[in-house]
């Protein structure tokens, strides 16, 4: 009788070559999946655009004259979204510290902020800041619309992100705070130097999501004459009765922007996950 080991060696291929074959098969399957995915998108989106253009209702000539002007609004959209999200983070940190405060008044103020903002529509807040606020604070009338719009967006997102930051701060292990306290740090130092830096890492993926929402919600400041993407599309479109063309461009640009920033966010998240933590 043949010893077991020899028998197997005779029947089976080399282990290394099996591993290699599995790896090849997997990478082929994965490539096929991705190619099919891209092909499906090209067919679907291309087909849709073709139907739109070939239908005769879509004025391609108009688009070729005006697309540059409309696209120029995308820069303002991105600017508004970035400045707003940065300012929103500031509001959110303050809000979160307030919501975690043992000081009743501070807690009350922070909770009121979150409650009012979350309890009213963003569109109301944007229009309010532009039309109603100057009636109480006359100086607000002199502030450029874009700054008022950024303030409204940041104030609103800050309230939603307050809860994100609160959760982030609470997710930092209690031992971190204890270690900092045991070293003699003051309360403010513990928060600033130990807890917040860790909390921010925890909430960065969530901030990315908020930023992508912000890109789209920033369209609301078109209502207060900020000449961003939607405002340009809407203005050019209505004046020439070509809203199908201009709004399609605007929608496509918003979509592209969100795709680009989502990819960017994916990479950031992966880097954070693999980082020095």
């Amino acid at each position, binding site marked *: 009788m043949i010893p077991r080991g020899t028998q197997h060696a005779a029947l089976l291929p080399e282990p290394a070559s099996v591993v290699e074959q599995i790896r090849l098969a997997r990478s082929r399957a994965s490539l096929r999946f991705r190619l099919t995915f891209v092909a499906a998108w090209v067919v679907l989106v291309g087909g849709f655009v073709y139907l739109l253009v070939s239908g005769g209702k879509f004025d391609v000539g108009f688009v070729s004259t005006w697309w540059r002007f409309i696209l120029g609004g995308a820069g303002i959209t991105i600017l508004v979204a970035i400045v707003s999200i940065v300012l929103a983070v500031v509001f959110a940190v303050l809000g979160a510290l307030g919501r975690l405060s043992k000081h009743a008044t501070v807690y009350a103020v922070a909770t009121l902020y979150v409650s009012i903002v979350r309890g009213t529509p963003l569109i109301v807040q944007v229009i309010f800041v532009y039309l109603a606020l100057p009636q109480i604070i006359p100086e607000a009338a002199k502030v450029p619309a874009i700054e008022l719009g950024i303030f409204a967006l940041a104030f609103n997102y800050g309230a939603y992100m307050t809860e994100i930051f609160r959760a982030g701060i609470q997710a930092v292990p209690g031992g971190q705070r204890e*270690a900092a306290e*045991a*070293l*003699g*740090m003051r309360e403010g*130092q513990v928060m600033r130097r130990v807890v917040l830096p860790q909390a921010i*890492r925890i909430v960065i993926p969530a901030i990315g999501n908020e930023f992508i929402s912000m890109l789209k919600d920033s369209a609301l400041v078109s209502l207060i004459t900020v000449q961003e993407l939607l405002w340009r599309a809407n203005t050019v479109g209505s004046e020439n009765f070509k809203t199908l063309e201009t709004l399609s461009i605007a929608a496509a640009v918003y979509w592209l922007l969100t795709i680009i920033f989502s990819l960017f966010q994916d990479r950031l998240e992966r880097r954070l996950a693999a980082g*020095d933590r």
Partner: protein
Amino acid sequence: MSVALGEVVVHGSGIHKFFGQNHVLRGVDLDVRQHETVVIIGRSGSGKTTLLRCLNFLEEPSLGSVTIGDINVDADPLRTRSRQHREKIRQLRMRAGMVFQEFNLFPHMTVLQNCIEAPVHVRGVPRAAAIETAERFLNKVHLSEKRDEYPARLSGGQKQRAAIARALCMEPQVLLFDEPTSALDPELIGEVVVVMEELAHEGSTMIVVSHEMQFAREAADRVVYVEEGLILEEGTPEQILDDPQRDETRQFLRRLLLR
């Protein structure tokens, strides 16, 4: 014991601690002298960790007082938000270095940054001087080559040694160890114990809550047995570990050996 004991550095008196209705510490007095190493033993739930945490007010005692060096703080659980009281606690903590079971290194800082963080930002030591001190203590815990690594890249034993260096960098009058080897894989315990023994032999003042009987034998000047929130028995390692007078101590030691 290689260094003669000095005067009393840590003086805890009449320490009580309630967690709700649960009376965890029931009037503990503990004096520790300069250069002395005290090992606190006892079963889990006996209150030994709470006692240690009361000494630097990570737990506010319900009653009693703690003196470390020139700072005395009376328990004042109802006025914990008073500024003066908090400042005294902070002063107390600056005099006591703490080493935790779970290391609690700051993950967003390198080992060196962990070590200089409090000296620079709490004690106001110039950065260059703090780095010099940190390098000296990192060398002492045999971790010089890891000074620029982040904690995530260290083994458990290395993390704990870094945490010991961090505590040493504040040049405290006493080191408090809360089960420093309990979270370590067995093969990593040795390197931490060696460092602790070296510190003890060099005359550091240490209070150590631990189940490492070998460490107690090697390094302790005094072993304290705690049960149900009271010190039941204390003495030299030989007295307590080899010839305990109380049944409770004897039972505890027997169970520990059977593990």
